[in-house]
């Protein structure tokens, strides 16, 4: 047995030797063209740097599959001005932040990454992103977008697109929307043929993001904000207001308005099938509704608890690596991204509200403007690294309250707050 194993190992390795030569140089060959391999992302180093500027050099940027085309176009525009080649490398959305943190210290990371703002805390904690100069441009941008990329006084990325959830109405079922959430539920229940008065996606582990507008209308934001509008680590959802919200969703759960079985896909399908006059969702699905021939409007979410219902705002942007050996051109590229022509390109290719005010005002899409208005009061999603744990406790507790696993809503809510506080 043992002998045959060794023979097998030897045999396999002989076969492998044929390709084994390749493993020695995995990290050494900078490939000139964009490919999905990590080797290709290597920034020029050593003598390469001194030669590079002759033709403007190369910047490497990681973007996910939905943004590669836009950044290739921007790269060409930028290249005409500066002679710098932009090498756009496609990576899966979920891998960009994590791979970047792991690779940047090795010197093999990209010069820039395109990703959402909510990973900022983790990126800064690991020291892989560099602050950019933004003070002179901040006024030109939506303040929420700038705030999203700001941490401890530094701006770390150029924002370019914003998205948030809002109330989407099926105009074939109802034409006017009442001012409060309770009235909206009553109206929705009265609609003939509708299975749900309103659809809010949940799923087995909950979805605090889609319930957040309702929660803020009770005056219970996730964290208290300071005078600059920045989040502190003090929980805002603890106390009376938070408890009221917990009891409210418990009631909605008992009434069958909210259900843990309604995950994202089921929610979308139900709205497409006309099973509900309303849905709380984001711009990622409205285009599908329109393509399906539905007549929809996008409105702010009515208040359930008396205060304004404010959703979370997610912002997309571009970060510069603090390990970049070509930091100067990289900063010039992010400067270029804050111009109207660049933001317009990103809007055309991405279909989200631009972060630059001038570009956002030029958007004439009614639905997008509806989302923009619904998000006007919104706060950016918090960026602290502990947020991942907060989401899990938060959604898990909400779903337990909704489906009755935790019959005492107030106590479950308090336990959740205690657990989150223990994370800090």
């Amino acid at each position, binding site marked *: 047995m043992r002998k045959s194993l060794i023979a097998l*190992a030897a045999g396999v390795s002989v076969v492998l030797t044929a390709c084994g030569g390749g493993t020695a140089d995995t990290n*050494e060959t900078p490939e000139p063209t964009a490919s999905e391999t990590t080797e290709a992302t290597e920034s020029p180093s050593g003598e390469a740097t001194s030669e590079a500027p002759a033709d403007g*050099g190369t910047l490497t940027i990681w973007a996910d599959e939905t943004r590669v085309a836009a950044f290739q176009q921007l790269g060409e525009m930028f290249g005409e001005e500066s002679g710098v080649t932009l090498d756009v490398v496609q990576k899966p959305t979920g891998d960009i932040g994590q791979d970047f943190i792991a690779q940047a*210290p090795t010197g093999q990371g990209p010069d820039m990454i395109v990703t959402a703002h909510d990973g900022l805390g983790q990126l800064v904690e690991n020291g892989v992103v560099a602050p950019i100069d933004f003070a002179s441009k901040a006024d030109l941008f939506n303040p929420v977008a700038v705030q999203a990329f700001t941490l401890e006084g530094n701006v770390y990325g150029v924002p370019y697109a914003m998205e948030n959830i809002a109330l989407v109405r099926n105009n074939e079922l109802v034409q006017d929307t009442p001012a409060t959430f309770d009235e909206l539920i009553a109206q929705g229940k009265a609609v003939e043929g509708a299975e749900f008065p309103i659809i809010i996606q949940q799923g087995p582990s909950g979805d605090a993001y889609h319930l957040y507008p309702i929660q803020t209308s009770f005056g219970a934001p996730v964290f208290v904000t300071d005078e600059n509008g920045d989040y502190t680590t003090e929980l805002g959802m603890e106390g009376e207001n938070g408890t009221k919200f917990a009891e409210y969703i418990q009631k909605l759960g008992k009434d069958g308005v909210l259900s843990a079985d309604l995950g994202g896909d089921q929610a979308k399908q139900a709205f497409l099938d006309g099973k509900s006059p309303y849905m709380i969702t984001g711009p990622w699905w409205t285009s599908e509704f329109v393509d399906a021939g539905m007549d929809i409007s996008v409105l702010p979410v009515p208040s359930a608890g008396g205060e304004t219902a404010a959703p979370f705002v997610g912002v997309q942007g571009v970060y510069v690596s*603090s390990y970049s050996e070509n930091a*100067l051109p990289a900063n010039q590229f992010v400067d270029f991204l804050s111009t109207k022509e660049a933001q317009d390109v990103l809007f055309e290719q991405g279909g989200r509200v631009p972060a630059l005010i001038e570009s956002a005002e030029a958007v004439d899409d009614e639905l997008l403007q509806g989302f923009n208005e619904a998000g006007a009061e919104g706060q950016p999603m918090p960026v602290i690294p502990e947020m991942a744990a907060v989401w*899990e406790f938060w959604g898990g507790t909400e779903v337990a309250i909704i489906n009755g696993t935790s019959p005492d809503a107030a106590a479950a809510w308090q336990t959740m707050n205690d657990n989150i506080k223990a994370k800090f």
Partner: protein
Amino acid sequence: MNDIKSQATTPQLSHARDLSRPGFYVKLALMALVNAFGVYGILASYAQEQWAILGVLVVTLIAADYIYFSKRAIPAKYLFPGLVFLIVYQLFVMGMTAYVAFTNYGDGHNDSKPAAVRQISLTSEVQGGESFPLTVIDRGGELGFAVVVDGEARFGTEEEALAPLDGATVENDRVVAVEDGEILGMPQIVERQEEVLGLRVPVSDEPEDGSLRTRNGTTATTSLPALKYDEATDTFTNAEGKLFRANSDQGVFVADDGEELSPGWRVVVGFDNFTQMFTDSRISSLFASSLGWTFAFAILSVFTTFALGLFLAVIFNDPRVKGRVIYRALFILPYAFPGFLAALVWRGMLNRQFGFVNQVLLDGNAINWLGDGNLAKLSIIMVNLWLGFPYMFLVCTGALQSIPGELTEAGMIDGAGPIKRFFNVTLPILMVSVAPLLIASFAFNFNNFSLIYMLTGGGPNYPGAPILVGETDILISMVYAISFEGGNRQYGLASALSIIIFVVVGFISWLGFRQTRKLEEIM
């Protein structure tokens, strides 16, 4: 074979040494290739200043050349490629895991200390907010910044604060021509970007006024360092004089009042990661229940799959069963599915409201298969039974067919009934060949991460538990949840915990194999 005479008189020359035969040239070509790649790798790692890789490559290459051109190292010729790959893909990975287990590598401790110092200095610069169009000027090799302040051209260098610049031409608030020195164009600025980015030009002789610096080469901004690093004492000092000392036990700059600077750096922390499992009360309370469930899961999985597999193997080994070939082929189907895919399909089928099991088989009863702790455990065992029995069925069928018929016949002659024959004759013989596989199956299921992760994700979570570990989390998925899912990646802790799991599995396997040897002695 070819030349018996020469074999008898002289020691035989192997194919690879005999110049007159093609084997030699094949070897030469192969070794030339190996050397070419090796030398290329050495040069490349020299260019990248990767000394460790360079050393390994040199040693490997020399060893390869010695072994394949020497007359003595005949066994090594067979072993060498295997050994190289064993070292690269197994020993190196294990060594790396062991090393990481003793460090605090993870979020906040991502890189070395110099990188941390550089990043803290970089992010602690408070921006003054004033920006000026910038001209970078080279005066005899020394770089300086020229800006226009209040309509007046000023110039300064690292050493000299901004002072009025005579004879400068200003256009649109930007200096476009100077008498003394050379204005750098963008290509030169990019070429010398390290110098340009590192340059801080004091605004005035008062340090509180801050200094000018640039990030893009075209605008300068005033900034003031909020933290100053002192290399001699290895400390950061902030504006109020608060001192942050480098703590090399934890890899972080920390003040007397406990305030820490971010980021920290990687340090060796000894056995901290190993003891955390038992000293951190939040983890240790859940560790016990998770350990119990892991054993229950692994043992039950082996037992149920083996029982069903053996039962079916015995039945379909009987020649009286018709269409055995077809049945056997059908039974192997679950084994042919990728396990994680099957787990995902089962997850959908077990959904409470929309799943096939509740909707079709149970007539719309809303049984919460994956949402209730005990039912979720049952679901996992059942799904793993479905996934695992074909393997046992295959193995047992093979083993049964190798048992000589005479033994059963002898039992029959001795007057033993079919059940007695099975338990006293067939099963003991079967166990000799199957027992090691059962141990392997146990070890596999002990770490069956993909099934748990895909089927239940470890859920349902213990309601109100302080860490996000679910009732169906086995040790390996618990390690994953603790080390990564909370949004705080702790590679050091994860490595330490996986080493603990390795020890547990290793010990059990050792015990098991010792028992198997006893079985063999019975024979």
